[in-house]
């Protein structure tokens, strides 16, 4: 009997053990389920962070980055009443609310460096604020900001908050602030690594965008500086070339003036010695012929000297009303024998609209002569010489210009010679002085005009002289 009792007791014990084990199993199961939920939750959060880290590098501007961060914060921390992302304005030493998610939008976007964002940016890493510490920090805000913040949320006051600085190394870009609702345990210390990750991702992305913007700006500056530099260099080169040219011309001018002056005395003596000899000679003396030649040649030297000197020293007194067409006809008459012998046909197209201008006729004649003789030299086997004048006017009431074209069908000027044509002493002719075109350009520029050149090797050359009409 006692045995039965024993067995019963044993069964009861076992049953109790069983129920205990059952209860234990239930607890373990619940625990397992909880852990499972947490694992799933964790997994979900990690995948949010992962997808965020994949998406951020593709963002092209800071706004996209901050919007993305705000959106994902809502996924990572459900139940949050407001999420604020601030960026530092270094110039004004303030925090500017760049993006937010809350029931009502916050109207004030700048915050001084205090309150939750102020604490966040100064914090070394992400923090969870609860209780009195949170209350104290909220009360740092002035009443106006506090009211604005309260209006933006459904639930007030928040019982917990997550804050994190946006920083890369020692550089701080801003802060992220999440306000929890009235439920005290909405945020858990386990959330801290996630808000930290979110803030770090945001900081790295913003830093990279800033670097990229700065690099682009530097690149632009560099390109601009380079182009300015190139432009300045080109201007300098032009100025240097002009300086060299005018220095050469001045040197030539001075030299020729002093030579001309020094020659005058001996020339005067020689010429008039011959004159005196001639006085004593009988009318039929055979020496007379040579004497005449000598006198003529000395006279020629005198004219050359005078002309050479006058090129470089245009006297104001010689300015006179000048008819360009008449001048051209006279010049062509002067060389007509030369043209005929060289088998050159001359064609003129002189516009009757050309007004009389105030100019140095002798000098202009010298320019025309120079260019026409050059044209003849360019046509050793004959050709056509075309001389044309016409009026140019860009638009009604604009200043008018006389264009004088002297075209030949000669050998043309090779491109490598063209830049140097108007330089003094530059010549391609065996017996040239290299002064003709330099002096011509000088004379034309004294008349405020320009000489242009068009040339095609083996086709011919056109010199265009542009002279402004003087309508003051």
């Amino acid at each position, binding site marked *: 009997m006692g045995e039965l009792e024993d067995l019963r007791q044993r069964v009861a014990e076992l049953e109790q053990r069983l129920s205990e084990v059952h209860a234990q199993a239930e607890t373990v199961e619940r625990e397992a389920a909880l852990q499972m939920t947490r694992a799933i939750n964790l997994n979900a959060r990690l995948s949010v962070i992962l997808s965020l880290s994949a998406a951020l590098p593709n963002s092209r501007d800071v706004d996209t980055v901050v919007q993305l961060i705000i959106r994902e914060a809502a996924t990572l921390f459900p139940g949050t009443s407001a999420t604020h992302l601030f960026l530092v304005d270094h110039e004004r030493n303030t925090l500017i609310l760049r993006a937010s998610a809350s029931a009502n939008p916050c109207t004030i976007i700048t915050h001084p460096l205090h309150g939750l964002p102020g604490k966040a940016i100064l914090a070394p890493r992400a923090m969870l604020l609860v209780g009195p510490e949170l209350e104290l920090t909220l009360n740092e805000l002035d009443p106006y900001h506090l009211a604005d913040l309260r209006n933006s949320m459904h639930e007030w006051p928040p019982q917990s908050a997550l804050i994190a600085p946006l920083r890369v190394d020692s550089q701080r870009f801003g802060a992220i602030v999440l306000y929890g609702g009235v439920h005290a345990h909405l945020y858990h210390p386990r959330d801290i690594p996630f808000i930290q990750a979110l803030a770090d991702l945001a900081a790295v992305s913003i830093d990279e965008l800033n670097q990229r913007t700065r690099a682009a700006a530097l690149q632009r500056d560099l390109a601009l500086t380079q182009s300015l530099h190139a432009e300045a260099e080109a201007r300098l080169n032009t100025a240097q070339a002009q300086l060299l040219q005018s220095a050469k011309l001045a040197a030539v001018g001075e030299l020729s*003036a002093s030579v001309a*002056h*020094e020659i*005058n*005395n*001996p*020339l*005067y*003596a020689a*010429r*008039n*010695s011959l*004159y*005196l000899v001639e*006085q004593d000679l009988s009318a039929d003396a055979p020496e007379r012929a040579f004497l005449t030649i000598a006198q003529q040649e*000395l*006279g020629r030297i*005198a004219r050359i000297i005078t002309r050479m000197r006058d090129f470089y*020293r245009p*006297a*104001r*007194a010689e300015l006179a009303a000048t008819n360009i067409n008449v001048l051209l006809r006279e010049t062509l008459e002067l060389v007509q024998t030369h043209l005929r012998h060289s088998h050159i046909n001359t064609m003129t197209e002189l516009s009757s609209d050309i007004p009389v201008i105030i100019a140095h006729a002798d000098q202009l004649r010298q320019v025309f002569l120079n260019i026409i003789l050059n044209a003849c030299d360019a046509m050793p086997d004959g050709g056509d010489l075309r001389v044309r004048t016409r009026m140019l006017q860009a638009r009604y009431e604009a200043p008018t210009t006389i264009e004088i074209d002297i075209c030949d069908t000669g050998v043309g000027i090779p491109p490598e010679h063209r830049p140097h044509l108007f330089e003094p002493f530059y010549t391609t002719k065996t017996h040239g002085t290299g002064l003709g075109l330099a002096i011509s350009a000088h004379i034309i520029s004294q008349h405020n005009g320009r000489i242009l050149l068009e040339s095609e090797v083996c086709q011919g050359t056109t010199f265009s002289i542009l002279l402004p009409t003087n309508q003051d």
Partner: protein
Amino acid sequence: MPPRQIQICDDDPAAALITQRGLQTLLGENYTVTVASSPNAAWLACAHGDVDLLIVDPGAGSGSASALVRAMHAFRPTTPILVLTAYDTPGLRAKMRDLGVSYYAAKPIDFKELLPIVTAALQTVPMPSAFPSRMSVYH
């Protein structure tokens, strides 16, 4: 009637000689043409003698020649002056005109052209109590 006096002031010996010989030959014995090689010597000649025409070349540095022209203008206002220069520039012309010089010629002028200018200058009637009327014969 004593011969009339022409004084030349030119520091170029050959040119001075030719001017002297040429004018002497062309004008004949009624004129005495003398040469001074410096403005100082020319001034001495003009101050002491009765010079009827001064022909002067201001040369490269026209300073002392200008002084001579000024002195003539002050002390011998009736004596005509001909500037015959190898250093003709618009500046020199203007300067000589300002100094009251009536006759101006630039070398290398031919005697054929120089002679009428010299003759014209010599014909300027000296008026003892007044300045000669200035002519504007600029060559």
